């Protein structure tokens, strides 16, 4: 591996990274796929933050949404269906210097990965988690997902699904050691950017459920909300989301919500007639697992050697002479 001199120099201000630097290979999603908007927002955020490409890892499971890392110019780990979170935890555990992002789907996160999701929430490691919720299994071609609304016709529910949709927002608000929960939609770019940015700046496990359109398999599914801004409820807060005046005029239903109020957050998630978007909950004081588990000792050869000798001493039979 040849070392290039310029890599060793600190980047000067002229060498600002551009959007193109954050792009990976060309996205292969369908035309109109909501994942595209998420990608754009994330690339912009990273550019605006000027995150060093090599210090960022995008981790994902399997699904359309989980192709995300391939489309970033950073490091990426396209893992196994349902296992993005534990992989991301392993990465973060001893590499606090890395910025870890996770992209997961509704099937990936709420179905096969549900146990990991619940525990990742509790571990509260510092990472930004985007759950692309298109209410369907995209990659495997239209099977019902836990978040599909009742009656959804899919390849495995040809006469309509039987169960009420699983609500990931309420569920996550019931988990322990909660740190950051937000909801946003792919079709409001400004808000999308803002919420992901707030999540990124939050220290802890920042979970964002992103309503994501899948025109291929559920073409009109989110249209009522896309078409009618009045069906959306924007959660604002001085220390959270604040709408531009342009957006304010479109999204008229705004509600001041203090993200530290968990009881209220649950109530909003459970009872809101409109679709709430914004920060539901944020607790900057929830302890992060990687901090709690950071050993007091350095992991150096000398330390290891000394520690080992000390342990061996305990079990040693010395020659008797």
């Amino acid at each position, binding site marked *: 591996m040849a070392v*290039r001199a310029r890599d060793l120099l600190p980047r000067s201000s002229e060498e600002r990274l551009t959007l193109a630097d954050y792009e990976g290979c060309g996205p292969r999603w369908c035309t109109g796929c909501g994942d595209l908007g998420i990608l754009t927002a994330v690339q912009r955020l990273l550019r605006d933050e000027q995150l060093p490409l090599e210090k960022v890892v995008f981790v994902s499971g399997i699904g359309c949404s989980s192709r995300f890392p391939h489309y970033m110019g950073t490091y990426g*780990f*396209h893992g196994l269906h349902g296992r993005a979170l*534990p992989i991301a935890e*392993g990465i973060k555990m001893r590499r606090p210097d890395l910025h870890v992002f996770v992209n997961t789907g509704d099937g990936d996160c709420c179905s096969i990965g549900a146990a990991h999701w619940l525990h990742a929430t509790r571990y509260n490691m510092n990472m930004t988690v985007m759950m692309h919720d298109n209410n369907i299994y995209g990659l495997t071609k239209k099977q019902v997902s836990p978040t599909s609304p009742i009656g959804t016709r899919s390849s495995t529910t040809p006469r309509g699904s039987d169960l009420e949709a699983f609500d990931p927002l309420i569920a996550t608000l019931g988990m322990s050691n909660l740190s950051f929960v937000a909801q946003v939609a792919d079709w409001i770019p400004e808000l999308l950017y803002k919420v992901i940015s707030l999540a990124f700046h939050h220290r802890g496990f920042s979970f964002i459920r992103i309503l994501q359109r899948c025109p291929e398999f559920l073409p009109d599914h989110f249209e009522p909300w896309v078409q009618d801004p009045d069906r959306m409820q924007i959660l604002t807060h001085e220390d959270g989301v604040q709408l531009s005046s342009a957006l304010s005029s479109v999204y008229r239903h705004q509600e001041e919500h203090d993200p530290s109020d968990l009881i209220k957050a649950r109530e909003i998630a459970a009872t809101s007639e409109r679709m709430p978007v914004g920060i539901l909950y944020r607790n900057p004081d929830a302890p992060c697992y990687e901090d709690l588990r950071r050993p007091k000792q350095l992991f150096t050869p000398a330390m290891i*050697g000394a520690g*080992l000798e000390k342990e061996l001493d305990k079990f*040693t039979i010395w020659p008797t002479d």
Partner: protein
Amino acid sequence: MPARKQSVQRTPVSKPAMAIDEHVVEILSDSGEGAQKCGQSFASISARMGKGIWTVEIIPAEIQPPARSIEGASGNRIRVAGYPVANGGDQADLVVAFNEQVLLGRLRANELKPGSIILLEDKWRTSIDTAIADSYNRVYEDLVAQGFCVYEIPMEVECLKLVSDPRRGKNMFVLGLLCSLYSLDIQLAREQIQFIFGKKGELVVTANRRLLEAGWAWAEKNLDFKYKIPATPAKEANIVVNGNMALGLGIMASGMEVCAMYPITPATSVSHYLSDVFEKVGGVVHQAEDEIAACAFAIGSSYAGKCAVTITSGPGYSLKQECIGLAVMAEIPLVVINVQRGGPSTGQPTKAEQGDLLMSIFGSHGDAPKVVMAASDIEDCFFSVITARKIAETFNTVVVLLSDASLATAQQPFARPQFSEEWLAPPVDQSPVGDEDMPYDWDDRTGQSHRFIPGQPNGMHTLTGLAHDRTSSVAYDLGINKEAIHHRSLKLAALQKTLKTPPVFGDDEGKLLVIGWGSTKGAIQEAVARVRADGHSVSSVHLRFLQPMASGIKEILQRFDRVLAVENNWADDMEDAMIDEDNCRYSGLAWILRARYLVDVVCWGEVGEQPIKPGTVERVIRRQLDNKHQEY
């Protein structure tokens, strides 16, 4: 009741210690009465004096089994010899039992040598619960009738002279007894007590020392026999730990930084030990929400440059298969330790078995080549981890290290390892990657490639479990998956070229070769030594690497008239009316040897028992020598 009188009433004056080569001693109690501590102390003292020892834990299957029950027997078997020993021996020569019930299971399992000595707590004889007294009497009579040499010992009575709760002290009284009987150094025993109870304060130490001394004195006064086993005082420092602790120490010593696990017997005690000490050298044990998460966590950590191990047993190992395939595919170094237990399914969690070999080699869907190695004794547990980490990081691959319930709890002294910085991995590479470099730039000869670790400038790529090319891009074209599969397979071949042919134990050629792997080594070699002592042309070879296998093995097999695989796993019996060569299910290693070398390896396997005994292997060998071809 002559036997009884015999023991308690005699007051011997002088007892010359009878010189013996070795003894197998068992100490059995209800769980919680401390037989294990007594046994381990007895072993430690013996080892410190320079005797050879091997200890086997006798573990009840329940957390708190009913008192005085057969399945509740808890304790230790200690084989003490004038020379190094590598297994727990055959039948016990002397057994100490805290009640008659705990003896029964051992008797049924035929673990007592005919005529062996039994030291039995006598308090039950006079129990006010007549059912208990009756049971005791019945068993006692029976034992005497069967020719056992039973000594009734008033353990409780004697202990009560010193402490109020004899349940908590009897074990040290017995330790004193045993020190007397085996002419052990009572001063070393006192030090042992200091070592065990030191933390609990002087009062506890003193009480226990008194009990020890009382036991010693009582035996000196009341028992009419005494043994002496020669010792060769060690010239170098030895350490005494069980296999799981050796694995834990090995993990520390290997430079791995993360251990991700989910509790499961018998693997868990590795992580118990590690949880205590790993942080002291900067490592971390993560108890994940399940085995899949543990494996995924370890993969994430290794990917990020912090080499990780995940530890499990059978059921957890099955669950990790998908993740293991990912590590193979993405070429992430990963050490997976499987402390095998009795299977299939939940099976027999505390029992030893070697049933996971073929799954280790062939597990995970698709072509998922990984390295499989097995530890064959306690020292090997320690060093195998170091080797496993090194191979994993050299070849960017998965290394499965197999141990089992037998090694997990067995203790045997071995030379104190001399720490070397070479055991450790170099620090995480964070240097920039060259413009021409590719994350999977497979060497066409060895299959090896670099890998880029997050943080390395210019190395950005997305790792994937999908078929991918050298740049780690998803491969849609035909043939690209083949290229990658080819190189991953080559890595095993390249490693294989570096492996040393295992040594033959015994002559290099002859009539019968016994072949084994893992924890059976001690039993096999002892059995072979015994039949060789009778002049038989039998040798053995023991494999450390199961996948790939070292060169030269075929040549070894071919130099013998017959080859017999001995394993602690299932093998169909050719004598069975239903079994023939068209349907015989061979033992694990036999499958591999037959397939690779086309040698008619016959096999013998045992499941659902204690660790395989040398005497059992000896019988199997002798039957083979009687030339009943295909009997096993």
